């Protein structure tokens, strides 16, 4: 890399990748997305709020509380919530409990692959403040230092009812146009990246996983 590109703010350095691999990955810096005109955006936000597709990635033990939510007893489908097997298509990422350093790396990769607008729910005490893993050598304490979080659902573990309440809050935020976590992430990308790289020692992926 030449000196100019190093200081070019629109290009990411991808330092973690070996030299010969850098060509395979996109090094463009993501850009913030602007909302549309007021009433159109309001209408679209209403649609977004009523069609929430979860990323079906059980990141921690809290994912067991998502199962009863999907089945007949709590039936999240009636609220317009459906699981989606790929980050590309989903709009809500649930951090289901504690995030070990290894999982955090996957969380970041998956989060960055989701398309905007995207929302994050931190489920249980562990992603909020560490919970019972507060002094563990291998788990992170606050997930919102690594990706932006829209809704926190406290508890160890929260019952499906609380998760439904959390979804209701998320819907309210989306309708009000306040769930702009993706833009916040891109705006403060350097801060988030510094935090992420501080804990993930084997950073062998591009700086932004397009």
């Amino acid at each position, binding site marked *: 890399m030449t000196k100019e590109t190093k200081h070019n703010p629109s290009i990411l350095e991808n330092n973690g990748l070996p030299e010969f691999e850098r060509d395979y990955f996109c090094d463009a810096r993501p850009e913030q997305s602007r909302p549309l005109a007021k009433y159109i955006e309001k209408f*679209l936000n209403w*649609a977004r709020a009523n069609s929430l597709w979860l990323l079906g990635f059980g990141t921690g033990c809290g994912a067991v509380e998502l199962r009863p939510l999907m089945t007949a007893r709590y039936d999240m489908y*009636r609220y317009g919530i459906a699981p989606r097997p790929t980050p590309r298509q989903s709009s809500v990422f649930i951090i289901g409990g504690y995030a070990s350093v290894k999982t955090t790396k996957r969380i970041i990769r998956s989060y960055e692959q989701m398309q905007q607008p995207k929302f994050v729910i931190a489920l249980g005490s562990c992603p909020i403040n560490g919970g019972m893993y507060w002094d563990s050598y291998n788990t992170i304490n606050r997930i919102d230092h690594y990706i932006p979080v829209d809704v926190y659902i406290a508890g160890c573990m929260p019952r499906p009812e609380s998760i439904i309440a959390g979804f209701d809050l998320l819907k309210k935020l989306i309708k009000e146009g306040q769930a702009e976590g993706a833009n916040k992430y891109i705006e403060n990308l350097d801060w988030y990246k510094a935090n992420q790289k501080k804990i993930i020692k084997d950073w062998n992926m591009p700086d932004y996983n397009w």
Partner: protein
Amino acid sequence: MADILRTALYLFISVFVILNYGLLLNGLVRKIVARAHGRVGPPIWQPWLDILKTYAKRSAISHGVMFFLGPIFRLAGGLGTYLFIPAIYGSVMFANLSFSGDLLLVMYFIFFGQLGMALGAGEGGHPNSAIAVGRGLSQMTSFELPFALSVIALAIQYHSLSITEIVAAQQGGILNWTIFTNPLATFAGLFALLGMNMHSPFDIVLAPQEVPIGPPTEMQSSFLGILQTNRAIFLSAKLVLFMNLYLGGATNIFAMMLKTFMLYMLSVVVGVSFPRFRTEQSIRFFLGVPTLLGLAAVIIFML
């Protein structure tokens, strides 16, 4: 010129109606399946919300030209299938372009979209896409056999490959329908329809929990939106085609909706009753009884 404009307007209305009808069918079926599971289920208008949400995504990632073209080919396949079938017999507005193409063209269009999608999904580079494309193409080849035999039997029976003429020959009473005049070909065709609709036990392409969502794994935002649009159009197009071939067509929109709904219910009832086949089981199934039924239908009408 005025003729062309009028045809274009009619086509637009026809496609708009069939798109919404397809989405309505999807919504209804989700509700019905949910009831079979003992759930409340999503609201009937959920497919509209999903499609709107997908189109309203603010960013999209492309993996190359073919990735771009995949969903477009798929939509072209769905539209092509629909536009060359008369949706309502005797209606000018819903006759579509049925005079310009025959059954073979429609069969080609059914295949075309899936091939285009296979190329597009391949460029996405996700292993699940490639696995599911392989499964999908092999299953499609196997259910195409009973379907083609059934179509050949119909062509021998009615001395025509024009869908309008096949529908015309079935008018004048319920006993003139192909399901009564040629039950073997009908059952071969309906087995093929089960495969085409990709409900359980033939849902080996999208196969949740196996290749989670199959070919569209990498498709997002408007790419997925186009696929969802196509899913609604293509579904109703197939149902309308089978209604025309086997159930005597429809002379008004309510008859069309009733008959296609009943046809779709066949897939849904089979779907909620049976677990998924493995790929080779599905292929063996189509090459067994359905193909023999189709062969028998052809032989009987040739004698």
